[in-house]
């Protein structure tokens, strides 16, 4: 029996479960509105390492270890690690996997990586290809600035649409088969996004570059499953930021989708408070990953949220394409998550 629903969605009938999750963030993120909810704070941006890149991968590694220990398991119990990050050749994920010694598939979806890995992880668990696996990702303000923008000490002004790369990491342990029966939060559907580009060339305006992809994936999920905003407690986007969220609302309305704005929760808008002066909000792989691990998944487990559509958005650019004047392709992958009552 085919598990495909419509053009872009698959159903996960065995309901892979969320066994455990862990988040680690930096100092600035810990001073935001959700600061008290993260599992661990890194006070020193070097994280006790000799470079920012080493600091980032140590954070990813620690998030995975923490997630595994919160589940009461050993690293050797984990059959697969699906991870990726923003750095060239996804070095944070690859290097962390070297120390963790878990069989590893590296993924790249820019900031959409956490929902990309949850989609693929959910399908692998549902298909019986893995019983216990971990999806993880990370980003670090200092490594992202170095790679995409200018040296940290350069005295420049950020534009009003610029977003602040989150220093943070999130790891989610998924279970399939019998191990999933005890989970209070489960995956029900995954929608694979198309890459969309509406001609934004400003690398300091990621929200505008990614909003069309988010709109398209939400519309595709609704069309494929016959659901709408009414069926969800929240639609959680990754890091559209303030402008990107406004654009998403506008684009959805143009498509004829009624948008109850209070149901649209953007991790990039929420992770920092306005007085933290991040301009359009947070971004980076670690933004959505740490926020779902600190806030959304706990609320789902507790039953405060019953059904959530989570889609992280990614801008698939590189410094080379920016310099060559290319526009920025965006992508968004969605997973539908539900609370499951004990014994159900």
């Amino acid at each position, binding site marked *: 029996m085919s598990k495909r629903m419509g053009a872009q969605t698959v159903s996960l009938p065995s309901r892979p479960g969320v066994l455990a999750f862990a988040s680690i963030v930096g100092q600035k993120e810990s001073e935001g509105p959700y600061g008290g909810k993260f599992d661990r704070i890194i006070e020193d941006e070097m994280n006790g390492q000799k470079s920012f890149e080493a600091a980032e991968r140590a954070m990813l590694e620690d998030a995975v270890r923490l997630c595994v220990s919160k589940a009461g398991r050993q690293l050797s119990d984990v059959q697969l690690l699906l991870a990726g990050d923003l750095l060239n050749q996804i070095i944070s994920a690859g290097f962390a996997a070297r120390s963790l010694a878990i069989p590893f598939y590296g993924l790249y979806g820019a900031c959409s990586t956490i929902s990309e890995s949850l989609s693929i992880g959910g399908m692998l668990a549902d298909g019986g290809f893995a019983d216990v696996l971990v999806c993880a990702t990370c980003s670090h303000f200092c490594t992202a600035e170095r790679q995409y923008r200018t040296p940290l000490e350069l005295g420049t002004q950020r534009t*009003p649409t610029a977003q602040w790369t989150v220093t943070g990491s999130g790891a989610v342990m998924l279970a399939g088969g019998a191990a999933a029966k005890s989970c209070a939060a489960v995956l029900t559907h995954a929608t694979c996004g198309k890459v969309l580009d509406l001609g934004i060339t400003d690398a300091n305006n990621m929200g505008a570059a990614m909003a069309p992809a988010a709109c398209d994936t939400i519309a595709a999920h609704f069309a494929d499953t016959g659901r709408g905003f009414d069926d969800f407690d929240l639609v959680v986007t990754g890091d559209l930021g303030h402008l990107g969220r406004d654009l998403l609302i506008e*684009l959805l309305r143009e498509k004829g989708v009624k948008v109850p704005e209070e149901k649209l929760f953007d991790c990039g808008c929420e992770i920092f408070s306005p007085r933290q002066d991040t301009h359009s909000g947070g971004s980076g792989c670690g933004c959505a990953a740490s926020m779902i691990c600190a806030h959304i998944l706990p609320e789902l487990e507790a039953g405060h949220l019953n059904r959530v559509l989570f889609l992280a958005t990614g801008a698939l650019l590189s410094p080379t394409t920016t310099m060559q004047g290319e526009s920025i392709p965006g992508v968004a992958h969605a997973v539908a998550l539900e609370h499951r009552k004990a014994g159900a």
Partner: protein
Amino acid sequence: METKSHNRAQQIERYAGLVARLAPKSDMAKGVVRAFLVGGLICTLGQGITDFFAYKMEFGTQAASTATSICLIFLSALLTGLGVYDRIGKFAGAGSIVPITGFANSVVAPAMEFRREGLVMGVGAKLFTLAGPVLVYGIGSSVIVGLIAFFMEVM
């Protein structure tokens, strides 16, 4: 095919309009005032240093202006190293980029940034990633202007 590309162009134009309508704008007036104040302050400081060397130390005007550049570059490098100059830049924008201190900042910042990649391929290769274009086109245009001046004198 033609209508398809036409549709795409229309779509892009429409979206650009939407983004322009919703995007927050830079506060131009505030930016200009801050740039004027900080830039003016840096230049006043430079003039003070020049006068000090020219009159107090009796360097002569040419040597005094060289000594001023040295002092300003040193100050800017020091403030960059202490992590202060980027904060000034955040406040002042072009006010702290345009004077010679901004140029020094744009050389010291990559030097600090790429130290971990080694002295040769890190600092050595990346030192002028930001200042390089200014040097290339600054020196390039000075050659052209020099040639024009030379031929005007000859004629």
